[in-house]
């Protein structure tokens, strides 16, 4: 395994620290931001790997943001990296919530805080939409019909029927296996001829 420099550790830690400190709204908000940082800006992770990591983070117990941070840290620097990213993810909310829980009443009723929050919410929604467009492009570029159908089906199931996310993951995983078997079977038959 390649040696990981101290500068890489520092960059890894501060990247997740900053994301965690600025991310309102939990798991599905921080994951697109991690993708922006680690796939686009730093180029440490492949697009496909990031999606795989999101799927693993989503289907494992615990907070999605923490799980995704563990996977990113592990990818970059194995177990020390994972421990570092967990710390980076947990410390900002730990500090912020400790302080806020002392001044909770004043914080909740502060009009400035509320206006800034309302503005940030618009920004976060824009960031997520931006990332979704980029990710959908990578699916469309493959010019295969099945992934597009899975995307639309999963979207409809989540959005309009509030189907349990674990059930969707299970079904989509099975569809993936069946598709692979089918493709390998046709490949074998083609080779047999």
């Amino acid at each position, binding site marked *: 395994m390649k040696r990981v420099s101290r500068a890489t550790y520092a960059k890894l830690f501060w990247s997740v620290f900053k994301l965690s400190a600025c991310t309102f709204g939990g798991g599905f908000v921080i994951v697109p931001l991690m993708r922006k940082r680690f796939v686009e800006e730093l180029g440490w992770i492949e697009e496909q790997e990031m999606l795989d990591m999101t799927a693993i983070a989503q289907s494992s117990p615990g907070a999605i943001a923490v799980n995704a941070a563990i996977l990113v840290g592990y*990818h970059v620097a194995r177990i020390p990296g994972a421990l570092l990213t967990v710390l980076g993810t947990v410390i900002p909310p730990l500090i912020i919530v400790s302080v806020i829980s002392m001044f909770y009443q004043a914080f909740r009723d502060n009009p400035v805080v509320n206006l800034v929050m309302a503005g940030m919410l618009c920004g976060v*929604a824009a960031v997520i939409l931006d990332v979704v467009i980029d990710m959908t492009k990578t699916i469309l570029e493959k010019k295969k019909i099945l992934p597009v159908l899975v995307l639309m089906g999963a979207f409809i199931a989540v959005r309009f029927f509030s189907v349990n996310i674990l059930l969707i993951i299970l079904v989509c995983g099975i569809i993936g296996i069946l598709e692979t078997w089918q493709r390998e079977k046709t490949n074998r038959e083609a080779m047999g001829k």
Partner: protein
Amino acid sequence: MIYLELFWSYFQIGLFSIGGGYAAMPLIEQQVVELHPWLTSVQFADIVTIAEMTPGPIAINSATFVGTMVAGVPGAIVATLGCIVPSCMIVMTLAYLYYRFRGLSIIQGVLAGLRPAVIAMIASAGINLFLTAVYGKSGVPDDIWSFQPLALLIFLGAFLVLRRWKVNPIKVMAGAGAAGFILFSLF
């Protein structure tokens, strides 16, 4: 021993909350309101508000809040640790397995099936946030034209800046916060 109890309660929350975010809420409520006399249900409702208003995962935020209330800063640290230890063990194992076996065609198949589904879920979460941003917390009203035009303006501005100039998202969010403060207080 209060620290052990806090650790153990949050260990269970961390272990059994699959699907993240609001899926964890009933579990947290059961542990800290029903099984232990740590919070009243009013305080619990406050946690939900705090979790919405502050960065970070809701389980971690509630661990910090409850820990601080019950046993000060050490309590916050112990509860947070309890919450992340199950994730660390399970996800690191999965990460190891992923890098070890992802070449297998069956794993390739599973992952290929999951990728579009993940995009769909992120899209849905994004739409929820967008609707909350332009219509407020109560959701979409019967009259769909009663949205907040300023919120929509900030959203479109942020979106344009992101697509066209690929600006760092954290700067975009900070900018949107500043724009929110200026526009919402002026108009």
